[in-house]
């Protein structure tokens, strides 16, 4: 027997909507990003002022490609979750909020796809 009002049920949102899942995903990606970003920063340093050949050798390494893919997934998932909260907190006009949210999510997935294809290109040696 549900304690919700019919209107609430019709809106399809419980008292907390899906906040717990959002919160948990943010922590999980955050924890993953601690070692991944530390590795990335201290690995990418070697490419300061490097030429194309050095970059190709760096990005073409199998293990590095695996870590880069994990990094990219975690970065963009974490960014999308965080930016969503920022928009929800500061944009109060419903139409503007929805448009900003859609543009933000599309942009995040576009960048994620761009990064992944670039990494795969070098990892698969083309």
């Amino acid at each position: 027997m549900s304690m919700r009002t019919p209107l609430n049920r019709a809106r399809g949102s419980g008292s907390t909507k899906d906040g717990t899942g959002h919160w948990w995903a943010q922590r999980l990606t955050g924890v993953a990003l601690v070692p991944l970003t530390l590795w990335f920063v201290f690995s990418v340093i070697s490419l300061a002022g490097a030429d194309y050949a050095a970059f190709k050798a760096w990005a073409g390494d199998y293990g590095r490609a695996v870590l880069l893919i994990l990094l990219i997934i975690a970065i963009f998932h974490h960014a999308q979750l965080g930016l969503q909260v920022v928009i929800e907190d500061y944009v109060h006009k419903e139409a503007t909020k929805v448009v900003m949210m859609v543009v933000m999510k599309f942009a995040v997935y576009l960048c994620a796809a761009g990064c992944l294809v670039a990494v795969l290109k070098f990892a698969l040696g083309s």
Partner: protein
Amino acid sequence: MDSRQRPLSPHLGIYRPQITSVLSILHRLTGVALAFGAVLLTYWLSAGAYGPEAFARAQEFMGSWFGRSILLGLTFSLFYHLCNGIRHLAWDAGWGFELPTLRATGWIVLIASVILTGVTWVLAYKAAGIL
């Protein structure tokens, strides 16, 4: 009682900035900055995928004074967001809510971010053969 005379809670601007509140908003600001950093990462990786000319242009931009200033800001943002993120995880585990602990961990996070940023840039200049 006249409902129009009800006291309102004071606006944010009335409060004296404190280490707890300043670091809290800094976490959000650095997070947004890092999202733009992710766009820059996309540009750099895509330039690499496009070929030698595009990659050389990207490297030239990153090495310019403008590119370097952005990268310096992003390095600090990254280390701050990372260190303060660990502080957040400690709070999630129920640790560190007492005011003296909050202030101490706040300062530790700030100092650690500055040191890590400095170490990163010394290493980067060494890698580039400038230092």
